[in-house]
């Protein structure tokens, strides 16, 4: 079985997107980029209640 995924190329594309996105943020007013960001962040926050790990398991995970 062959995995056709070039990690290096993928990272390069991700960095290109970071540049593209940063230029967009710089170009638009604060209320525009922050409104879109808020939709994403707020959805993460709503979904945080579904995080079913115990504190002990979470600490074990992050302290590895």
């Amino acid at each position, binding site marked *: 079985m062959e995995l056709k995924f070039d990690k290096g190329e993928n*990272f390069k594309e*991700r*960095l290109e997107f*970071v*540049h593209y*996105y*940063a*230029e967009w*943020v*710089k*170009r*638009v*007013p*604060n*209320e525009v*980029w*922050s*409104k*879109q*960001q*808020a939709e*994403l*962040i*707020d959805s*993460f*926050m*709503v979904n*945080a*209640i579904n*995080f079913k*790990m*115990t*504190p*002990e398991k*979470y*600490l074990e995970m*992050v302290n590895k």
Partner: protein
Amino acid sequence: MELKYEPGKIKIENKVFTALDEFVSDFMKLLEGYTDYVIVSGYVVILFGRARGTEDIDTIIRYMDKDTFTSFYQRLSREGYYFLNPEDVNGLYEMLEEGLRVRIAKEDTIIPNIELKFVKDDFDRYSIDNRLEVVIGEKHLFISPIELQIPYKLYLGSDKDIEDAVYLWDIFKGEIDVSLLGRFMKALNVRGKEYGIEV
């Protein structure tokens, strides 16, 4: 993006306050009644627009004596927070004194959480001594200088951290002290040229 710069301060006007901003702001408002703090790492990038989430908010605090910490611990409990670490107040304080990190979340949640640690090294000390005040409407937060954030992210070195460093550079490159950035990059032995970070 419109940012207003004053010495030691950045103002972000007309920013939509996210639920994460609210969580961080509410906690820091409590914390600053007990000690100075500086937010480092992922949340700093998110504050300036990066479209990603974070599970935790890394925060460095100045030393608190045990009585002050106990008072802070009790206040947090009254305000609906709890420590994820399975220690009592004495154990938590010992952890901080030993240079370890403690995590605090709102009751019945695990994430997001605030990760607290005492100032430990010169970089921590520089961060908190030279922290930047970010003003968003009526609220304010203190973050690490961008000139240290970028090299630190490169030092951490994961793909996500490098993306964060590149993002901060793209947002702030006209405004930061590039010479200071270069000094920190040298001190942390990191290079950014391959990512377009030119010092």
